[in-house]
């Protein structure tokens, strides 16, 4: 059996008396696109926040590439190779698009503060290298035309793309996208669909998505995990999930079945 890229087992998180995530176990294999779906308040974003260390779990374990990451701080988790975007956008509104992407590469910078102060040649080379890499991401996300604008001045769909570019800038093996299609129009969603495929096929990224937009989820997912009230209630290929009575009940209520 191959070792999973991400292995979540018996994950638990309570906020005071409210149990947000309970007995959640799943895995993500290298090269997969996996979606987590479920009604509002099902614990999907909480699961993301637990995986990336925004807050620690109250129980269970998370392994990434075989090493334990649960309870680790967000920046350390990112360092290990998990990148993410946020449900309610956490781009840097007062930085240009290019600077947003460059901040994503902060950890890759090898020039010290001293070389930066003295403007030594090493600093110039390093900046050129980072900028070249930023160029590739800016082209990939089709942000070329707006690269020197402040992120705050972009339309919502573009801001989402900036955040994805920033997450990619840290070279994650696993990319977590929290509702990437929220606020996007159908054309933009189509582009997102293509982008996710390209990320998997051309760039070898493994992708875990929380998303409400069902047609997108059904099209791009290799597997779907369905959550309700903090628990996993179903898992399978898109067609399996579509047929599952439990899923229908969670979404439409018991009376409809």
């Amino acid at each position, binding site marked *: 059996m191959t070792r999973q890229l991400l292995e979540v087992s018996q994950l638990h998180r309570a906020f005071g008396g409210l149990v947000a995530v309970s007995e959640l176990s799943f895995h993500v294999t290298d090269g997969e696109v996996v979606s987590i779906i479920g009604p509002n308040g099902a614990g999907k974003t909480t699961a993301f926040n637990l995986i*990336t260390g*925004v807050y620690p779990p109250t129980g269970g374990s998370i392994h990434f590439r075989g090493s334990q990451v649960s309870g680790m*701080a*967000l*920046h*350390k988790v*990112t*360092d290990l190779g998990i*990148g*993410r975007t*946020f449900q*309610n*956008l*956490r*781009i*840097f*509104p*007062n*930085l240009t698009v290019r*600077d*947003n992407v*460059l*901040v*994503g*590469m*902060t*950890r890759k*910078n090898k*020039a010290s*503060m001293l070389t*930066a*102060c*003295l*403007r030594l040649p090493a*600093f110039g080379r390093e*900046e050129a290298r*980072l900028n070249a890499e930023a160029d590739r991401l800016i082209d990939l996300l089709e942000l070329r035309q707006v690269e020197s604008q*402040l*992120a*705050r*001045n*972009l*339309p*919502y769909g573009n*801001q989402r793309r900036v955040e994805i570019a*920033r*997450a990619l*800038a*840290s070279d994650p093996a696993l990319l977590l996208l929290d509702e990437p299609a929220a606020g996007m129009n159908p054309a933009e969603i189509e582009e997102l669909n293509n982008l996710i495929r390209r990320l998997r096929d051309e760039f070898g990224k493994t992708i875990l998505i929380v998303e409400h937009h069902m047609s997108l989820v059904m099209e791009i997912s290799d597997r779907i995990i369905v959550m309700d009230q903090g628990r996993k209630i179903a898992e399978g290929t898109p067609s399996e999930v579509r047929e599952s009575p439990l899923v229908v009940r969670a979404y439409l209520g018991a009376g409809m079945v």
Partner: protein
Amino acid sequence: MDLFLQVLVNGFAVGGTYALGAVGISLVFGVLNIINFGQGATYTVAAYVGMLLMMLTGANVLVAFVGGVAAAFIVGYITERIAVRPLRNQPLQMSLITTMGFGLIAENLVQFIFGPQTQPLSADLSSSVYSIGPVTITNWEIVTLAVVVLATGTLHFVLSRTSFGSAVRAVAEDRRAAVLLGIDVNRLIIVTFCIAAAMGGVAGVLGAALYNAIYPTMGSLSLTKAFAASVLGGMEQVGGAIVGGLILGVAESATAVYISSAWRDAIAFALLVGVLVAMPTGLLGRRDLDKVERTNLSVFPLPPVPRLDLRRMSIWLPVLIALLLPLVINDNYYMRILTIMLMSGMIALSLNLVAGFAGLFSLGHAAFYGFGAYASAILSTQLGLPVWLSITGSILLTGAFGVVFAWPIMRLRGHYVTMATFGLSGLSWMIMLNWIDLTRGPMGIRAIPAPEFFGETFGATGFYYLILAFLLISTGIVLALLNSPFGRAIRAMRDDELGVASVGQDTRVLKMQVFALSAAIAGGAGAFWAHYVSYISPDSFTPIVSISFLAMVVFGGLGSVPGAIFGGAALAALPEILRFASEYRLAIYGLILILVVLYRPQGLLGMRHIAPDARIRKGQPASNKAREEAA
């Protein structure tokens, strides 16, 4: 044991007045999520109006009390209308500056009218002492305790049992929802503000009666105590503020008895820092610090960071003028002003790095400035190191001190950073005052040697060129770093800390780095100052000085490098320009701060920002963040 009981009784009486002040701070913080730095004015005004009334009506204490509290109520009303309400759509820190300005004006006016000296509340204020078992208690302590119980009891009743009280709690919980429910939020806020001010007024009159002494700066001191008590109790918790006030009172009275009365006033600062480090939510605070998030400065776009392009004229022109000035000016007095202007520019530059770029609204820079000055003075006088070595050593030491300083605030955000740094600044000042073996305490350090250059001792022109060199080097370093990955990361941190962490950057490390750099620059300015004036004392490094540094940055423009230098230079020159009006100097200072924030919040050289509300009305795209802040 008897002594302890006595400590407890005295502590409760004094602590009761702190509790009232803290309740005022907490009420306003709860409803508006701002820190009212102007509350000190309510104490002072109430006490002086009380004194005046007693003089006029012949020691009718009750009239004096009611009159004083009414005056405080009016102060609260004016503060809200002038310094708070116009700023509803500004970052929350802006009202910190305006309320501070308002406090300065009030304090200055009182000082102008009544003089700076300490005077009795009333010459014939009767006081008697009662013995209850082993404990003695004065009639004013009894009155204080009674009034505190009565006032807080009434407030508790109003907040928990009346419809006004539930409206207050609704607004504190969610202002937008309260508006939708038809609550007249503006009216409610101003009433709350006035009640808070009245609480401050009660504390002011009681405090004055307790010691039978009033002085114009009594408000600033009491304000510090109110902050500490409020933070200890959990900031927005009225009940917590009362508990916090009583604890602070007892702690102070115990310190005075068991340790030394010199350290008494350090307790408030120490508590402020200690509580924020160990348990930022305070004793009775709620677990989450969500409200703090709304103090984000990201509604202010930063002006573009000037590129470090040495071929550009715009960089060299001011340098050239600065280099040539001494050839034109032969007057030592003007050279002195210019030197002080450059030094202030350097300090403002350093603070701007932290406050403007990294978004950490620090009120602690007097500590760095003072640390640099003391370090270099001690190294050169007590250890006899050569001056140049002392200055270099002092810069490095202050940088290290910056890391130590940043450690307690690494987890904090928004107002809590401001409060913690204010506490640290106060604590540093207390140490300068009281660690007499090292700093010679209030006497200060004399005969600090001037540096030499090839055997020549520095004169007025020499010092001018020295500080110019310091300023140019630090500006160069700041510009170089702002145009580097480090600079991008700290600007990003100002917008969104979680976002920075999500790309693998530890924000705690960033904060330490930016504080170290900033402290080193401010420390350099301090070291310069020590050798320039050859005499330093703790007076130059009080928390009020920290406030004036922040004022310089806001005046010039948060996040603008030329703005900060200009702001520092301009506000440093102001006292000299206003020499003809030296008695109202602080008031004019306060007025300028209010006017700048009201009419040009981005500072004189900062970039115009669009209020988030206006953006949404105009149908422009606004990020989620901006929308949240519009609330």
